[in-house]
């Protein structure tokens, strides 16, 4: 299922291409954007299906409620903008116009996390997974690479109900082999089996976590790596089973440690199998400007930095 060819590719382009393919198959798919179509890559859909694309201008609240209205008419709206504006500016619209009636709207937000880069904290959504997860009935998915993004978007078009999909701005390395990868919305994916510690991650930090596992292996640590693209509803069973084996859990995410994967895993464990958990992500702080790799390094999210934190957590350094 994994690939060794770690070529960096644009998840956003993958999203745009997948939308176009889906648009050809299903005329009910409509796409909305808020003046960021060239960034989110919904422009590809706009070019091919102009009559089914709505550029709402810089008006995210209007976009979300309009998407709700289109869903009320049986359309399958994909609404896209940056994660910050999708979830921050329009949270009330998402909760009340989309979530409450359980409308079939897919919010696909790009630029999630610290790797927005030079634009800085105003544009770096570090809370989006947290606030989307808290809306009743909202499914929350954070895919890791292009192959997975394509599968998740195809799944989203078939699934009935509100969904938040968060993708990164970054060109991310391929993790999964396109030919053999199969997205399972019900199960977390055990990428690597191990005995000493369980690592749980998703999104662009999966590639970093894979590097981290390799470094730990060199130090004689056997880490189990769990990929959790579906943060909600969470696969409790896989996480509890792994924690029962290792008794030590580390969560890794390009998001605040408050409310995201770290919190979701803690909630699952504290009710079922209390184990010690180290949450790695951004702390109770805003991000800042910088180049993407510099930021990943600064916030301790590279494979190397992750390995140091895990070793410390295990008392090995």
């Amino acid at each position, binding site marked *: 299922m994994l690939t060794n060819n770690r070529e960096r590719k644009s998840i956003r382009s993958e999203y745009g291409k997948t939308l176009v393919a889906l648009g050809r198959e299903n005329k009910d798919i*409509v796409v909305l954007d808020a003046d960021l179509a060239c960034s989110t890559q919904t422009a590809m859909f706009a070019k091919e299906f102009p*009559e*089914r694309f*709505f550029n*709402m*201008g810089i*008006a995210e*609240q*209007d976009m*979300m*409620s*309009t*998407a*709700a*209205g*289109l*869903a*009320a*008419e*049986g*359309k399958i*709206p994909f609404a896209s903008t940056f994660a910050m504006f999708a979830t921050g500016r329009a949270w*009330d*619209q998402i*909760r*009340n*116009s989309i979530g*409450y*009636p*359980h*409308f079939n709207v897919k919010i696909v937000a790009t630029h999630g996390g610290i790797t927005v880069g030079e634009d800085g904290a105003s544009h770096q959504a570090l809370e989006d997974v947290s606030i989307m997860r808290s809306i009743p009935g909202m499914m929350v998915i954070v895919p890791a690479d292009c192959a997975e993004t394509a599968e998740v978007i195809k799944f989203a078009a078939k699934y009935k109900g509100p969904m938040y999909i968060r993708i990164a701005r970054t060109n991310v390395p391929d993790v999964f082999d396109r030919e053999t990868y199969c997205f399972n919305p019900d199960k977390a994916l055990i990428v690597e089996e191990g005995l000493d510690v369980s690592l749980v991650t998703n999104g662009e930090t999966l590639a970093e976590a894979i590097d981290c596992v390799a470094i730990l292996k060199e130090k004689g640590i056997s880490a189990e790596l769990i990929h959790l693209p579906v943060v909600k509803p969470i696969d409790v069973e896989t996480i509890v089973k792994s924690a029962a084996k290792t008794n030590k859990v580390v969560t890794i995410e390009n998001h605040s440690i408050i409310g995201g994967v770290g919190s979701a895993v803690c909630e699952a464990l504290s009710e079922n199998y209390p184990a010690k958990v180290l949450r790695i992500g951004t702390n109770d702080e805003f991000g800042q400007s910088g180049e993407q790799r510099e930021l990943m390094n600064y916030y301790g999210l590279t494979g190397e930095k992750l390995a140091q934190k895990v070793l410390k957590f295990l008392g090995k350094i």
Partner: protein
Amino acid sequence: MTKLSEKEIQDVKDFAKIVRRDIISMIYNAKSGHPGGNLSAVEIISTLYLKCMRHFPDWNRNPNFATRDRFILSKGHASACLYSVLSRCGYFDSKELMTFRKLGSRLQGHPSAKHIEGVEVSTGSLGQGLSIACGIALGLKLDKLDSNVFVYLGDGELQEGSVWEGVMNAAHHKLDNLIAFVDKNNLQIDGCTNDIKCLEPLNEKFRAFGWDCAVIDGHNILEIFDAVEQAKLNSKPTVIIANTVKGKGVSYMENNVGWHGKAPNAEEFEIAIKDLT
């Protein structure tokens, strides 16, 4: 354009009387609700459902269901009025009205699409209904359906900036299948709308945003009907600014800001019912 006969006007007036009594009874029974803004909406919502809209009280069992006109109550706190009109039109048994705002009721405090026939979408958080209505209007155009979308806004609600995002969007897409009402009763929870955040000149604002605009007496059935007939012919989105009286029909509630969001006590209830008989 069709004209309403004297008899038809009287029918709507008689219906509106029942709706007013329902509203007061529901709110009294629930011990909470919004009498003022419900009573200002009665003639408009009654006229729409009795005379203007193509709709099917047997809800989605009708084979022509897709061709229905859509009604969106953006000022969701006027839910009692909508529920009464729906039930008196035959959407559900009027006995259910007395479950309004009670635990387990399908008649939630603010309209919920999940719960009850005739409610298209969920509203209550102000400033969202117009954008939802635009989405529906766009969807209807994609499906080449000739249905109209009616959206009912409060005047205080227009202070929500998101409303004006929707106003721009409707004009941009030339949504001639969209007809908005503004229930201009000039009051909001904290006082007079023009003291709190002035909306005037409201008709000029809508016209400047690219809409057709009519100003009517929101309690005059003939004016309501004629304005809708005209709006259906317009090639742009239309707003009908309806001058209304908050608390209309109940002597002590009329134009009294204190009756935005509280229920009458037993004595007040008796007076209200007497006023409405």
